[in-house]
């Protein structure tokens, strides 16, 4: 699967609809989180993703992604982090960063890691995917539902950015 379907050509107006000014623009949501605020974080992400024009299923996928990335920072990272959400170029970007040490994390193993993934494939469990693995399972799901995922292990911490195509309605 490719992410072509989520990259509508000639859609300059999409950034406007997404309330953002592109990948480098100001985020429409910028929120710190810890273990006690994941519920509030999900609610905020759901509201902003819906406002960006995503379908209910895609809104849910963004919420799942935000939660799994944040939970990863809470459970396997420093216990807290920062989430930013913005729209631009026909995509909704969900970025989670923390200032934790770059502990070796399981790779994002989904299709999105390399080629982009349009729909969250249901054929993975039978194909020997590591879904039974505890640590890393959340990231596997992110790789499945997001169109693209990039991970940056810097000296200042870890930043994961997942993007979701905004299909024209």
């Amino acid at each position, binding site marked *: 699967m490719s992410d072509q379907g989520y990259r509508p050509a000639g859609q300059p107006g999409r950034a406007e609809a997404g309330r953002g000014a592109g990948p480098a623009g100001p985020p429409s949501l910028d929120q710190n989180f810890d273990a006690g605020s994941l519920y509030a974080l999900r609610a905020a992400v759901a509201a902003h993703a819906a406002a960006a024009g995503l379908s209910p299923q895609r809104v849910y996928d963004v919420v799942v992604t935000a939660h799994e990335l944040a939970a990863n920072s809470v459970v396997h990272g420093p216990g807290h982090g920062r989430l930013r959400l913005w729209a631009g170029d026909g995509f909704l970007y969900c970025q989670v960063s923390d200032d934790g040490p770059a502990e070796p994390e399981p790779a994002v193993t989904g299709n999105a890691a390399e080629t982009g993934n349009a729909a969250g494939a249901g054929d993975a469990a039978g194909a020997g995917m590591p879904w039974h693995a505890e640590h890393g399972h959340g990231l596997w*799901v992110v790789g499945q539902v997001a169109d693209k995922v990039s991970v940056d292990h810097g000296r200042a911490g870890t930043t994961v950015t997942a993007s979701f195509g905004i299909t024209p309605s």
Partner: protein
Amino acid sequence: MTADASTQVTELTADDHACLTFGEAEELFDLTAAFVRDGLAAGLKVMWLSDAGPGIAVKELTRRGIAVEPAMAAGQLAADGCEGRLLSGQAFSADAAVGWLSGQVAASREQGFRGLRIAVDMGWALRPVTGVEELPRFEEGIAAALAGTTASVLCQYDRERFDPVTLASVAGFHTRSVAAATYYADAVLRICRQYAPPGVRIAGELDYQAEEPLARALAEAVRLEGDLVVNMEGLAFIDARCTLMIADAARTMAASARMVTLRCPPEVASGFVRLGMAGVPGVRLVTADE
């Protein structure tokens, strides 16, 4: 009332006068369905008096797998409002209500039933009904009316709407207190046992922080006999970890020749599909698309 839920609704016996407390309509319907199901199976006459009215009662019981129509046609099951039975012209008299109950006990015996089960939704007592102050005397009278009979009464109190003083004043007259086994409950999540059909019900938002109560609920469900339902219709969010736990439990049960039904909204279902659950023999993934 501090309802120590030491008794499960499935453990009630003849001449019990039980006090059931519930927190939401779904729980009331579930526990009532189990009460009705077990009564019908034991050959008892079963009545449910509620504000919901016969229409909703029939719908909710049918939805939970009870063969309502044939039981009603055979005169074994009745679902009615309280007016004309416990109440007369929106007025309540403890003596008249106990008299009505005794009449029903005698009538069921004459009709040839082995006993009688009556569930009474006490929601009427929250309205400005004349004589409602006689409620404790009614509860006391029930105990006397049931003594030596094969009739049992399940009084149903909404614990969110009845004040603690009222609940405490009637609690002592009951032989048992009944409530749904609850593994976890807070403002955003509820995990409890489901009785009809048997299984687990999860509502709200579920993530890894509720892993322990979820594990307990699933472990207990595995120990129940027969087919099983994990009712997630009221689940707005589930994380990867908990999706995996439920999928694993379902695979385990299905492997021992038990049918497992995962009932959930489409978004929640997508997580199970991702794990290949749509193709596991013995597992039914039902999307509640209401």
